[in-house]
């Protein structure tokens, strides 16, 4: 089911909020009733300055299973990663809100695409690659909003997966 969970302000550090807000690689996962996981790359993402609400944008054409699973179970896991530095954070929640994206979201999606073009340029991929990867029609896009309930540092290495306490410290 969808809905709004109790907010956990302070779960993410200012640094993690900034990472997510800057427009980095965003991968969204869910699962069905049989616990078969599903996943797809988001075509956009945003976060409130306090870090208490995140919205990821999925293309219905390429992410139909993930959207079905999010609708049915509300369980979401999202990894945000900066391609050049591999700085990575994962957030999870048990409830999501789904809505169709509209004209108000277009500017945000454009900003995200521009940010990702810069990101991927740094690791050697041209703008045409990024545009192909993130291609969508606005009318196909669904906005998925949730309040992060858990957060994990997933920068590669032995510390990957360490759970973050309030304020972004490692547990």
């Amino acid at each position, binding site marked *: 089911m969808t809905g709004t969970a109790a907010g956990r302000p302070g779960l993410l550090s200012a640094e993690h909020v900034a990472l997510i807000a800057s427009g980095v690689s965003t*991968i969204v996962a869910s*699962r069905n009733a049989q616990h078969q996981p599903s996943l797809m790359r988001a075509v956009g993402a945003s976060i409130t300055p306090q870090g208490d609400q995140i919205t990821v944008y999925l293309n219905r*054409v*390429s992410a139909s299973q993930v959207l079905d699973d999010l609708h049915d179970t509300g369980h979401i*896991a*999202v990894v945000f990663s900066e391609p050049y530095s591999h700085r990575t954070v994962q957030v*999870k929640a048990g409830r999501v809100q789904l809505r169709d994206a509209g004209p108000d979201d277009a500017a945000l999606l454009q900003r995200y695409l521009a940010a990702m073009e810069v990101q991927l340029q740094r690791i050697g991929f041209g703008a*045409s690659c990024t545009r192909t990867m993130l291609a969508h029609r606005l009318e196909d896009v669904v906005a998925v909003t949730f309040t992060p309930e858990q957060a994990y540092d997933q920068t590669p290495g032995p510390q990957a997966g360490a759970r973050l306490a309030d304020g972004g410290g490692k547990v």
Partner: protein
Amino acid sequence: MNAVTLDDIRPCLEGIIPAMIATCAPDGTPNVAYLSQVYYADSRHVALSFQFFNKTRQNILVNPHATLLLLHPQTFAFYRLRIRYLHTQTDGPLFEGMRAQLAGIASHSGMAGVFELKGADLYEVEDIEPVPGDCLDAPPPRSGLLGSVRRCSERLARCSALDEALDIVMTTLTQELQIRHALILLLDPALQRLYTVASHGYTASGVGSEIELGQGVIGMAAQARTPIRITHMTGASLYSHAVRRTLTDSQPGLTLETDIPYPGLAQPQSQMAVPLLCAGKLLGVVFVESTEALSLSCEDEDVLVTLAGHLGAAIELLRLDGDEVAPAGAGDTLLPCATDSRLLQVRRYRSNNSVFLNDSYLIKGVAGAIFWKLLNDYQQRGRTEFSNRELRLDASIGLPEVVDNLEARLILLERRLVEQAQPVRIEKTGRGQFKLCIGARLELIEAD
């Protein structure tokens, strides 16, 4: 419409763009993680590296169902793979191959200890879904690779000497496969080190330069007896620098004059090292590299491993056959040796058989001992004609007890002399026979 197979999407498994895996915990919480590489095990299985006991691993041990998201590095099309965890391998070819690959990558970043492989997690691929969406045009498929392999195999089957076999493989790599930088190294079984016997595409040939087993991509492929292919490298820590540094560190006694520099590229972006094996025995390594990322594909690996198999068999057969003597064909007329009255001072150090010509380093070890014997026979008895067989039987050379490739030592010596434009040459006069050409007055000096 035909279903997509794992073989169709092998470029997605090149590790160019990290893959993503979604798993699900027993309480229903999904997890998503980046994978540095998904390994192709066979047409229906993939393997993931188990390095850390992370959430993905905890999840799949309880719930084996996972989903992979792959991106094609040329078309940028997505593929979703439904996979099921089967078991973890901690030995065998798949595990060794993955471990060597990781170690090879780690040798570039100085992180060898961190990226130790604990196991190879094997998954069955249950379904491959081409994700609907935009994509770029795929480059035209490469054709003619099998023809190149065939021509190389035919030439190897006809050749009757090691230098020909090395030239055939080198020509196939550089002219048919358009690989611009290549080395062939052979194993010194006594010292357990690899020495460069043929090279192409480097400013200095590096023939005679040595690499320890386990050192860098070349030494790692030899030690683990498995191919290692690195398709793209960060410029941070570079292999050739690491090799030079570790060479010096590990052998403080190795004086600079007898250190033939390793010829590798300063800034390689792709590298592949394939072991030369025969009957399970390590014979050497074929190594190729490029200044361009992504220039060595899984198809190049298939070709190189196949060629290495043929070359390994040829090396072993020719070694066993090496003492057979056959005169050169009638068409092979040898040019007379140039004559000159210049003085050439030859100094040999007994401790390591290193030989210096007019104070410049030529060669050491077995090849140095051979050269010293030849020059002494010439100086004392005026001999210029020799056979491989007599060298093998000559105790003064001190060939190692273990089986050694005498012909490879002669090739090394011959090439070093040519490279240095010395007035002394070795010229083959037929199978298992050669002539010493001396265009100088010799002064032979021995030192400890």
